[in-house]
């Protein structure tokens, strides 16, 4: 029981790190980035190459995955995404679906279509018991890393100048511009960090979520659910949503395997029925 809770929390934390970038870009630019999962996949494969082929330590692989994915994010944001911000949601959806398709086929071409695993250090394998609760070492690591990241994000948002600029831009981009905040620069930086975090999440999560070229398609729904349920105005919303969904998904798959996958979809639809306006009202009102 507690083990499931623990696994669920680890899963939820992972989802949060993967999806928080998406929630901020959605809130900030009102931009539907369905290709967010592609960055996560990029992070996963970068770590795979570094650790499995080049023999770097796992921690270095994670760090480099973060940096490289963030750079890829900046590159894409500056060259491609900027042209699409002003367009209708339909165009944004088409554009990012196109990117997803391209990334899936490209990774398939370069890395092969089979599922791959990153070699994690042997110290992180296995599980141990505390008070009768089985705790996987790797999952504990995920909780620690993701927990620290969440704290760091929250501190950055609430206590730094960049954080207040970002919050101002999310609240009202036009007024923020009027106050002399360079919203585009804020957005590029946020996009980079969001992509980097997705990359890190993809690398960390390869062990749990699996990693193959269809990753962006498979997990797109999960990210979107997190964002839909959690809202886009803060990071506490997506955080809570990630935990709920992580726990619900793990528990659902464990207790009612037959209806496992329905659990999260049902949660999503119930939330949408109960709070249809609350979720995207701010974005729609602009």
């Amino acid at each position, binding site marked *: 029981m507690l083990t499931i809770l623990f696994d669920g929390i680890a899963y939820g934390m992972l989802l949060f790190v993967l999806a928080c970038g998406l929630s901020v870009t959605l809130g900030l630019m009102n931009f539907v980035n369905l290709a967010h999962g592609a960055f996560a996949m990029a992070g996963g494969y970068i770590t795979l190459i570094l650790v499995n082929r080049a023999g770097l330590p796992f921690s270095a692989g994670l760090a480099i995955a973060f940096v490289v994915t963030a750079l890829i994010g900046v590159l894409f944001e500056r060259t491609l995404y900027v042209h699409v911000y002003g367009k209708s*949601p339909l165009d944004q*959806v088409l554009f990012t679906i196109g990117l*997803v398709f391209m990334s899936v086929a490209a990774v398939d071409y370069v890395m092969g279509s089979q599922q791959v695993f990153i070699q994690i250090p042997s110290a992180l394998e296995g599980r141990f018991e505390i008070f009768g609760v089985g705790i996987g070492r790797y999952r504990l690591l995920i909780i620690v890393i993701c927990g620290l990241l969440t704290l760091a994000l929250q501190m950055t948002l609430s206590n730094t100048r960049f954080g207040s600029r970002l919050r101002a831009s999310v609240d009202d981009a036009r007024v923020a511009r009027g106050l002399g905040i360079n919203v585009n620069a804020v957005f590029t930086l946020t996009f980079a960090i969001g992509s980097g975090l997705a990359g890190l999440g993809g690398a960390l999560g390869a062990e749990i979520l699996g990693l193959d070229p269809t990753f962006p398609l498979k997990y797109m*729904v999960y990210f979107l659910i997190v964002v839909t349920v959690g809202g886009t105005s803060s990071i506490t919303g997506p955080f809570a949503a990630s935990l709920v969904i992580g726990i619900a998904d793990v528990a659902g798959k464990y207790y009612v395997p037959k209806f496992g996958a329905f659990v999260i979809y049902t949660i*999503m639809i119930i939330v949408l029925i109960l709070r249809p*306006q609350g*979720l995207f009202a701010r974005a729609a009102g602009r």
Partner: protein
Amino acid sequence: MATPSAPVAEVTHRLAMRARWRPLEYVFWLAALASVFLLPGRHLILTEIAWLALFALSLDLILGYAGIISLGHAAFFGLGSYLAALMAKHAIISEPVLALFVSGVCAAVLGFATSFLVLRGSDLTRLMVTLGVALIMREIANQIPAITGGADGLQGVTVAPILGLFQFDIFGHVAYAYCLTVLFILFLLARRIVYSPFGLSLRAVKGNPLRASAISISVNARLVAIYTFAAFYAGIAGALLAQTTAFASLDVFSFERSADLLLVLIIGGTGYLYGGLIGAVIFKLMQDWIANLTPQYWQFWIGLVLVLIVLVGRERIGAWTSAARALAEPLTRRFARGPMAAAYPSSPGKGGEGVPGEGH
């Protein structure tokens, strides 16, 4: 108040003018008819084009005319597909045309039930809800392998002769004639609907829901109606697929199918009925061609096309189709700009009035 019926007569006249058959439309359907006789070797792919065109037409009804973005239109397509296959397999309703209709009606019921979810929230919420519905449908099909065959798909389907007369053959001759007939009949129906006052009110809703409700158009009821109707079309398209291939698999619910459908419609152009039809022709030919070049990676090129379309801009892509439309326009324009039109000049508002298909 001397002649209160004058505006009514004017509107009726205009609607009739708009609904006139243009020369190019005759050409289009004659070409389709000719393909039945002239291209017997290509009937298999033409069959695919026919049901895809119907599917795209269905999406055009809600996207192009009502402005509802859907990422889960495959839900209705898949439902129709499975129902048709199941009815044929277990000989519940073995006659294909009747089975087709029943599949469509069931899909419409699902569309009606889920339409209330679609009414809520913004475009983003709609994307999520429609996607969620399609995924739930897929999961249901996946979880009851006893009925649907699960991941292996539903095999062993034998489709009875159409109307008890025409047996499906392996070359797809009958299948193509069948699909084309269904497409044509449903196209006529859709054409009738979008040129009706109801169709006009949908465009008004798409243009500005608030203003539409201010002139006493019941926005939600219209959206529910057209969504249900589009689901009916999608269900029939899915049933056509199942009947012509005698197979149904989880693939019919997949996200890629909904996404490809958007591409089909975007290639052809939204908001005029031929968009889906032309898009289906181009998409299938393109897919066929690319798949011959790189069987495994054709998705990459499809993705590239999507990205390029958005970067270049759909308006500019749409320009080439509007050239074709412009050819068909002047004849009807001249009538519409007659003496009556001068008395009631059309307002330059977006959406409602104007040339059909200029929605985007």
